[in-house]
């Protein structure tokens, strides 16, 4: 190789922790940059979410009281299905042109790839939620800007994405990946969805915090456990 290609650079070997965070940030930056160009993931999730809340709005023909009762269920159904779309798209981007192999060839702890993908997925999910909540508020005339509900949505999304990123990595290796992800994912996120719907419903109906706190605790414990499991098993999941 020519001499001028040789000079003034080297592969640095920083401390493993620094290397780990550099890799996580690199994956997040890459996902956000690619999405800003294509807008495929966000637009698919957003259009799907919009259609779901519109269909529920017209199909159920609810009075004011009933609207408040079903709101928690409708928003979590919307987020769960839109999230599946996003997870599938996020990992299929890695499958195109063999990019997953490119990631796996990098000399970093493979859990850095998991955390990078999970943070990217979480950002996209939050973006869709930020857009959908005001639209829902207008369509259903229900105020969703309740601090407790926002915390519930953050905790629920964290758990959903923690499991979803791991399972979408597994599903992407299969030929039937589009149908495999929901089949694998929904049974595992039942505790998250159940706890999130109960906590959300509690906050919307003004139930006391003592009644809601067990559901929030379930969400926190689920988030911690499944993030830890994903951290431990990701290397095996991506192994051929």
């Amino acid at each position, binding site marked *: *190789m*020519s001499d*001028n*290609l*040789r000079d*003034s*650079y*080297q*592969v*640095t*070997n*920083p401390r493993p922790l620094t*290397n780990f965070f*550099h*890799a996580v*940030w*690199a*994956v997040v*930056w*890459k996902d956000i*940059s*690619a*999405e800003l*160009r*294509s807008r495929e993931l966000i637009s698919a999730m957003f259009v799907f979410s919009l259609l779901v809340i519109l269909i529920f709005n017209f199909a159920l023909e609810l009075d004011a009281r009933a609207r408040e009762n079903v709101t928690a269920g409708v928003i979590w159904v919307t987020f769960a299905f839109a999230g599946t779309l996003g997870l599938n798209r996020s990992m299929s*981007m890695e499958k*195109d*042109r*063999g*990019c997953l*192999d*490119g*990631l*796996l*060839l*990098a*000399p*970093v*702890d493979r859990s850095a790839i998991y955390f990078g993908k999970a943070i990217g997925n979480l950002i996209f999910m939050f973006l869709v939620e930020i857009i959908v909540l005001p639209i829902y508020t207008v369509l259903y005339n229900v105020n969703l800007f309740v601090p407790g509900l926002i915390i519930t949505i953050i905790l629920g999304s964290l758990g959903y994405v923690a499991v979803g990123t791991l399972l979408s990595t597994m599903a992407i290796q299969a030929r039937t990946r589009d149908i495999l992800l929901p089949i694998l994912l929904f049974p595992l996120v039942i505790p998250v969805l159940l706890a999130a719907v109960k906590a959300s419903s509690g906050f919307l109906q003004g139930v006391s915090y003592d009644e809601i706190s067990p559901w929030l605790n379930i969400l926190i414990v689920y988030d911690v456990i499944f993030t830890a499991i994903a951290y431990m098993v990701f290397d095996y999941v991506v*192994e*051929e």
Partner: protein
Amino acid sequence: MIKVRRLVKRYGSKPVLRGLDFDVLSGEFVALLGPNGVGKTTLLRILASLSKPMSGEVFIAGFRLPSQAAAVRRRLGVVSHQPLLYGDLTAEENLRFYGRMYSVSNLENRIDKVLALIGLSRRRRDLVRTFSRGMQQRLAIGRAVLHDPEVMLLDEPHTGLDQDACAMLNHVLGEVAARGRTVVMTSHDLSVAGNLATRFDILSHGKIAASVQRSEIDPDGLMAYYRKIVNEV
């Protein structure tokens, strides 16, 4: 530089590699030849730490796979059938991403030099999905040499390239070899392999059936030798 002993790999009940032994010295350019389905890609994927063998030992640059995979991966540059590039990122963004994953210092400077080497400086801000197959493969080579690896693993790098793209690829590979880097390349095209490699290993029935140095055989004789070995085995 590369030492493989008694390597065994099966897909289901189908054995692909059957106790394969394989050695590559530092600075050698080895062409792995053989018919389709003989295990060339499988061997390369195991060397690249993308696949685990059922049994056997693999050492690269003195590090053992899979237990020291991160140390091995730092020393590897891999070019596969697919370019391993993101279509929605530009050429320089792809290199920047991989440079960050490999913690390459002076990254912007390095990206400039690699783009110049592969002749894509003028297209650096174009999206990869707008590139031809040949341009994507050139960028894939750029991605693979970005961190100046000691060992290059190339899986059919000339597949689908036109003559100009092949010539450009050969030029880059020639420069890599001239720097004393170790290269293992699988190829169907004996004429391409014959011009680049210093040694030819013929893979058949999951083992290295024959190995011949370039100095021991003329380019015209390589085809006859290859046919003889493949038909014999």
